[in-house]
């Protein structure tokens, strides 16, 4: 039992260490890539009255982020992650939930952003309520219809009537 707990601890430690490496590596790669992109831009070499190039501050921010990540990797290698502050806090949330709802929700909202100028935003948002509730496996038709119609009325009254927001595409009066 003790051995199994030890193995579990070791596995968690390795996973945390891997997370640190992955995260820091991603930050370093992104920072280097962005610095290279900025440096390739014509505006980056333009010098203002303060004798600093226009790219100086963004590059400094990226360099600090990359440097902090590099230091973190060095520290992780040196201490072998045995008693670091990292191991005292819980690791990344390993929830027993799938990733597809995040992808679906983001994709649906991005799609809505693309078609929002074609349909009435109030109607579209009410339909979004119906879709997202149905995807969340709500089958009670009274709840579904109540939430959809309630949202439609609430959004219409609040945005169109009370706040007086002008939407370019309006189906409702």
């Amino acid at each position, binding site marked *: 039992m003790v051995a199994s707990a030890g193995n579990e601890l070791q596995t968690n430690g390795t996973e945390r260490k891997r997370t640190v490496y992955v995260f820091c590596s991603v930050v370093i790669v992104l920072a280097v890539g962005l610095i290279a992109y900025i440096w390739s831009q014509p*505006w980056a070499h333009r010098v203002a009255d303060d004798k600093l190039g226009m790219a100086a501050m963004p590059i400094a921010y990226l360099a600090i982020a990359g440097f902090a990540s590099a230091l973190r990797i060095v520290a992780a290698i040196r201490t072998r992650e045995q008693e670091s502050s990292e191991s005292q*806090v819980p690791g990344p949330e390993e929830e027993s939930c799938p990733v597809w709802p995040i992808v679906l929700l983001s994709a649906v909202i991005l799609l809505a952003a693309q078609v929002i100028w074609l349909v009435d935003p109030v109607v579209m948002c009410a339909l979004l309520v119906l879709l997202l509730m149905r995807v969340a496996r709500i089958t009670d038709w009274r709840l579904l219809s109540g939430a959809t119609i309630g949202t439609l009325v609430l959004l219409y009254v609040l945005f169109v009537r009370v706040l007086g*927001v002008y939407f370019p595409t309006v189906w409702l009066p």
Partner: protein
Amino acid sequence: MADSLLGGLDLALVWGNFPLIALGVVVGVSFAAIPGLTGPVAITLLLPFTYYMSPVAAMGLLLGCYKGTMFGGSISAITFGVPGDSPAMATLIDGFPLSAKHHKPYQAMHTALYSSVTGNLVADLVVIFTFVPLGLIALKFGPRELFALMCLAMTTLLIFAEGGIYKAVVGCMIGFFLASVGTDPITNIPRLAFGVQQLAAGIPLVPFAVGLFAFTEMLVQYRRCFPYKQEPKQADSGDTREFIRHRSPDDRLTLRQFFSFWRELSIGAALGVVLGILPGPGGTMSAFTSHALGSRLRKNKGKYGTGVPEGVASAEVGNSATVGPTLIPLFAFGIPGSGTAGLFMGALMMQGITPGPALFTEHATTMIAVFIMMLFGTFFVLVICRLWLIPLFARLGLVSPRILVPVLVPMMVIGMYALSIRPFDIVVLVASGLLGLGMRHFRIPVAPTLVAFLIGPLFETHFRRGLILSGGSISYWFASPIAVGLFVAVVAAVVLLVRRRA
């Protein structure tokens, strides 16, 4: 001054303001009472609506919401043993046993409410009475002093940030970098737009803030609607609900009993005010420290944690007393000390008001009205929660995210779109939500990111203006005693930061 006071009263005492404060309180308490939905989420959701209001009404709505969230988190902590937000974890230590074991949920909730109102009131008075002296000091601040103060604020924020310093540094740099997208503050030439036309004016603040706080939370909550296996239900909560429905005669809190907690209340209020002013510590640290200090009092030795109302009072007053002081650095110097203060900064900027010394000179009347709104906010929390809403709010914790998320997300989407009728704002909302999700996965605190995003342009402007004024001379930066003092404090904070890491 008398004219400003009268003008402020005139702006504040408008009938239309009061329903907005009440609405803010109801939204704030409701959101905080639902586990998972925190105060900043509620404030970010209300943020787009404030665009259509007067500055005073907007601040009334947000202040009511902020004050409501401070108490709301304790409702689900006391009723179900599930803290609505992180500061409520300290309230849970004594609140839940008092409710579940001693069967006194109303005594626990009333203690939490009165303590929250006491903390809020003390904090309001501190803000009101420190605004003028701090404003006078702030008027003496030039680019070098403001730059030094921003360095100090960011360093303090990093010291107290959760999840390791290097992650806080990375989070802070992400915020600064994203803030530099748009135009160069000195030359006004577009930079870092990545070929996207809409980014030439910078990343829009409200969609970014709402995405980082609220949309991230919605993504997490929606994901939790689809567990691979069902989690066991909370124990004891059904029992507690029964005691909420059928209140026992001895489940009450008398004023005499409440005032007997004066030691706990005084310690918690003083601590909350001090920790609230500092950028970083926030309500959670204040609530836990206040609870720990209260337990050291001779009369409470060995009692805390067993379900005593003194424990609830200690935690709740410590938490709520941070509300006003968090806004002091924002109002006086234009530097938000926390994520929530950053959201208030965003709300003020949407109204065309730049927080900082200008508030004292150009918007004195508005600020007096805001202070009056602050006091009314505290009063509304007491009235609304005390009179009839506690049992109702207690039931809100039972609403499933399967219903909440599908209703709240479309509201967020239309709120973003209504701001400037730009689909691009919705794209920013989703992108910053995914960024927030990634940061949450790697446990990078989002508060330094938002604060850095907000003060980024000012930070760069003051630094580069200082460089122009100095003409390349280092002595310029140390010619002012205020700047020297602040730089010494920055060095001391950095030493503390390095020692903590070591």
